[in-house]
Every structure is written in structure tokens, then in C-alpha cells.
């Protein structure tokens, strides 16, 4: 991880350029564009089915978009295969966690240390050492020898984060890593994300816990039905009628306005 000093770059760090993703007749993403600055924390929100996870899949290379492209450090990466996107410096977690069930927690993370960014220079032994460091950071060091299939849900989320971090990413995509955590655990997770960000990693956070989004994001993008409907500072965006409408429906907004004019 590099020092977080803002580099005077002319080209954009990461940009989503008019990305569309169609599954047959379903337009999961429809002409979505935005830019992410180096060192930012971008909150990506929207109602269920608005295309957040699809966008994560496109940026990480898991899905190839129907049209449009993703540019990272001046390179178009839509056609780059998943394993190579990871080596360029984009890591992700899965909303539905995908641990290697028959491997230990440490082995799970070690696979990333072996094959991810900088992995080609590491021996198997060095990869296990690196994995152990990451397990200490996310708080799983005590249970490093357990099989991944034996972990509780919050621990599986932690494992997912450790597997992404071991790739030494420049951009980390976090897909609902806080779902199912209690308030204390959410605070701990937020602290962890802040630490990661301060070390220079750019974060894109998909989350339903609004408190988490507001407290950590430097900017927010809102998706609804595959389109970007708002973008800007968190407090501003969340107060915008269009966003409230997308979440709660047009009738709620109308009633709210009615009440305001009555008062």
C-alpha cells in the first residue's frame, strides 16, 4: 500500500463509463457513469434489485458489460479476465460469501497471498505468514486453523474481507459486509474500513445500513432500476426527494409534501 498523498493525476483513477448490463430483456444496468477519486470512500446505495451487485460484478471483471466500459488507471478493463483484474489492484468481497469450505481459515487467505497482486514473488511459506498478518488485522488469528465451513456468519464476513485485503488492492469493493452484524460489530467494521482507507485504499461500499454509509462515505451514488438517480455528498443525496421516492415510493413523498404544506 502506498502513502496516501494525493498525486496530481490528470487521468481519472477509476471511472464507470456508460455501463449497461442486460440479462435478456432485463436491464440490470442502463447507462451508468460516475468517477471515483483515489483515496475516496464511495457509498453505492439503492433499493433491492437496483443493480448494485451487478455493478460490483462488472467492475471486478466477474461480468462483462453489454456495453460501456470501466477505466482503471487509464486502462479499459471490461474485457480483462477476473484473475487479471485482481492483479491490477481491484479486490472485492461477495455479498453471498464464498469461503473454500474444506480449507482452513488461514489457507483460505493464503490462496490470495499466493496468486493475487505480488503473489508471484511469494513462496508458499511467505504466503501463509502474510495470511496470518491479515487474520490478525481482521481479528480471526485465534481461529486460523479452523475449517472455513465452521465459522459463524460475522466471522465469514471477516474472512471475506481478509481474503480481499491480502490482495493488496488499490480499490476494494465491499458488498454488504455489514449485513447481519449488530451495532457494536458495525462500529468495529467501520473502524476497520477507516483504517484500510487511511492506508491509501479506495473503497466502494455497498450497504443497506444507512448509518454506516453516512458516517464513512466521502460521496454517494444512488442506483434505482439500473440507472443512476443521484450523486453527491451523503447528507445531501439522502435528503433528495428522488432518492426518498426510489426507496419509499412516490405516494410516501407526496404525503410528506402534503404534510409540510399543511404545517
Amino acid at each position, binding site marked *: 500500500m502506498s502513502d496516501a498523498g494525493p498525486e496530481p493525476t490528470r487521468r481519472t483513477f477509476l471511472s464507470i463509463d456508460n455501463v449497461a448490463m442486460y440479462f435478456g430483456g432485463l436491464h440490470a444496468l442502463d447507462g451508468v457513469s460516475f468517477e471515483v477519486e483515489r483515496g475516496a470512500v464511495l457509498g453505492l446505495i439503492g433499493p433491492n434489485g437496483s443493480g448494485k451487485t451487478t455493478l460490483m460484478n462488472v467492475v471486478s471483471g466477474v461480468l462483462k458489460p453489454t456495453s460501456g466500459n470501466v477505466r482503471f488507471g487509464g486502462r479499459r478493463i471490461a474485457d480483462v479476465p477476473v484473475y487479471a483484474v485482481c492483479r491490477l489492484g481491484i479486490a472485492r468481497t461477495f455479498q453471498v460469501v464464498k469461503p*473454500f469450505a474444506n480449507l482452513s481459515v488461514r489457507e483460505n487467505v493464503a490462496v490470495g497471498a*499466493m496468486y493475487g497482486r505480488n503473489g508471484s514473488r511469494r513462496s508458499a511459506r511467505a504466503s501463509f505468514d502474510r495470511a496470518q498478518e491479515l487474520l490478525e488485522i481482521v481479528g480471526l488469528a485465534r481461529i486460523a486453523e479452523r475449517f472455513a465451513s465452521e465459522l459463524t456468519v460475522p466471522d465469514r464476513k471477516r474472512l471475506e474481507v481478509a481474503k480481499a485485503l491480502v490482495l493488496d488492492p488499490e480499490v476494494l469493493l465491499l458488498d454488504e459486509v455489514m449485513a447481519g452484524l449488530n451495532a457494536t460489530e458495525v462500529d468495529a467494521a467501520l473502524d476497520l474500513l477507516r483504517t484500510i482507507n487511511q492506508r491509501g485504499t479506495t473503497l466502494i461500499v455497498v450497504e443497506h445500513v444507512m448509518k454506516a454509509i453516512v458516517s464513512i462515505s466521502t460521496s454517494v451514488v444512488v442506483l434505482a432500476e439500473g440507472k443512476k438517480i443521484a450523486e453527491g455528498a451523503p447528507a445531501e443525496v439522502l435528503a433528495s426527494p428522488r432518492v426518498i421516492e426510489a426507496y419509499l415510493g412516490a405516494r410516501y413523498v407526496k404525503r410528506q409534501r402534503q404534510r409540510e404544506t399543511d404545517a
Partner: protein
Amino acid sequence: MGGLSGNATALRVTVAILILLAFVPLLHSGYDENLGRSVLMFATLSFGWNILGGYTGYVSFGNVVFFGIGTYTSAALWQHWHQQSIPLAIGCAVVVAVAFAIVLGIPILRLRGHYFAIATLGIALATEEIVANIDWLGAGSGQAVRPLEAFSSYYFAMWAVCAASMLVTYLITRSKLGYAFVAIRENEEAAAVLGVDATRYKVIAWAISAAMAAAAGAVFAGANGFIDPPTAFATDDNVFPIVMALLGGVGTVAGPLIGALILTAINETLWSHFPQIHTLFFGAVIVLVVLFLPRGLLWLMNTRGGWRGVVAAFGAYRL
């Protein structure tokens, strides 16, 4: 660490058995030597199947293709160039099989699960048919392979091929390569996100798998003295190694040899006592293994599950 090799005690015991097997020709019994060579050959085929099926999670029903390629390489060397050196035959067989594995693997390994299994089965059937129509390889009537004077050479060669296959498997489990294979088995998408180039490592796994099968085939051809399509692409040579790996322990180093020993023992006993219906019993054994020991004997010795796993399996079937 070293979590991919399987139970350490079982591995030591298996190495000891393998060393003992090296002395079988000293018994000067043709029957024992043939039986021992058969165990070593099936174990080698099973080691090969296990690299792709056990470690990488791609179940192949077509590995006999590479065994067949090995036998025919050996036969062609004798028929067309009058070469009968065993190391030369093994070397050429491995090169030819690896080339085939790469050419076939790049398109076929894009398929997953049942589709891959069926494609490999198709390749096995097609290859036998193609070879049966190539005159240069003796077509349907086959080819003679002149045996060496010292017949036990084939035994020792098969032993060396088997020991090398086991050693290669062990070294893979201790290396980064082994973790790429297992990550693909556990979840191919998650492996790719961690930087594992799945297509590349699947092809490597298949090539290693093919090399082991071809080496066994090259030695078998010489020992058998004659090769034709039904011998080179025998169903037994395709199915037994899979059952042996399942019985011994899929994705363990020792599993294939343990499975080969037990299954050969069962097969010989049944054959000598019930010659007419031994295949029926043998089929029953296969079904029982798949029902109650789906991951093999060695997994019983692991920390999890243990004998309780077998009891649970019995319970699940209400027996």
C-alpha cells in the same frame, strides 16, 4: 500447514507398503508379480485421476484415453522404430499425452460438472473408435510389443512410475500449485477473484493427470506384449481408478494406493470364490462405497466427521 496431503500417519503407512511392493518380484511367483504390477498400474491411474478429480474437482471419465495413448506410443516405438527401451517409451508417452491433454483441455475444461464428465466420456469412446481405424497403429487387429528378456523390468518400471506419481502428488500438495487446484475445486469463481487463472491451472492439472496415465500405459504395453483398442481403452482401466480414489480418499496423497490395494484384494477374492457372479459383487461394493464413504476411508481419520460420519450416513439411509 500442509493441509492438503491428508492424514500423516496414513501417508507413512502407505509409503511403507509401497516400499514393500518393490520386493514382490523376489517371490519368483508369476501370479504375485502380475497382481502386484496390476495394483501399481491401477494406483498410478488413480493418482492421475485424483489430481484432476480429487484435487481440482473436475471428474473425468476419460482418463483411459491417456492410458491408451501411452500404450500405443510404446507399441508404435517398437513397430516402426524397433525401440524397446522402457524409459524412452515412458518419456515419449508422457510428451504425446501432455500435448493431447493441452489441446483437448483448453476447450473441454470450460465445461463444468456433469457436462465436463460427459464430454470426457465422449472423448474416451471417440478415441477408441478413431484408433481402431488408423492402419499405422494396427487398426482393429492391434499391434505386438516385443517384451524385454528380463520380464521383471516391467514390474520395476511400473513401481517407479507409481512411486513417482505419488511423489509428484505429495510435492503438489506442499506447493502453491496444490492450493490453486483446491481453490478451483472449492469455488472456481472465488478462486478467480483471488487471482487464480482457473483455465490455466485446470489444463495443468489435466496434463499432469495425463502424464501419469500415459506412463502407466507405456509400461503396460510392454508387459502385455500386445495392444489393440479394447485392451488400450478398457472400461476397467477407466472406472476402477475412480472407484479406488473414492474408496481410499479423494484429494489425499495416500488414497489412490490404499484404494487400489483394497479393491484389488476384494476383486481377487470374489473372482476366485464366485467366478460367475464376481462382477455383481464388485458392483455392489462400488455402490456401498459411494453411499457410505463418499469421500473415502482416509477422510474418516481426519479431525472432522470420523466414524460418526459413517454412522450418520447409515442413519440418513435408515439402515
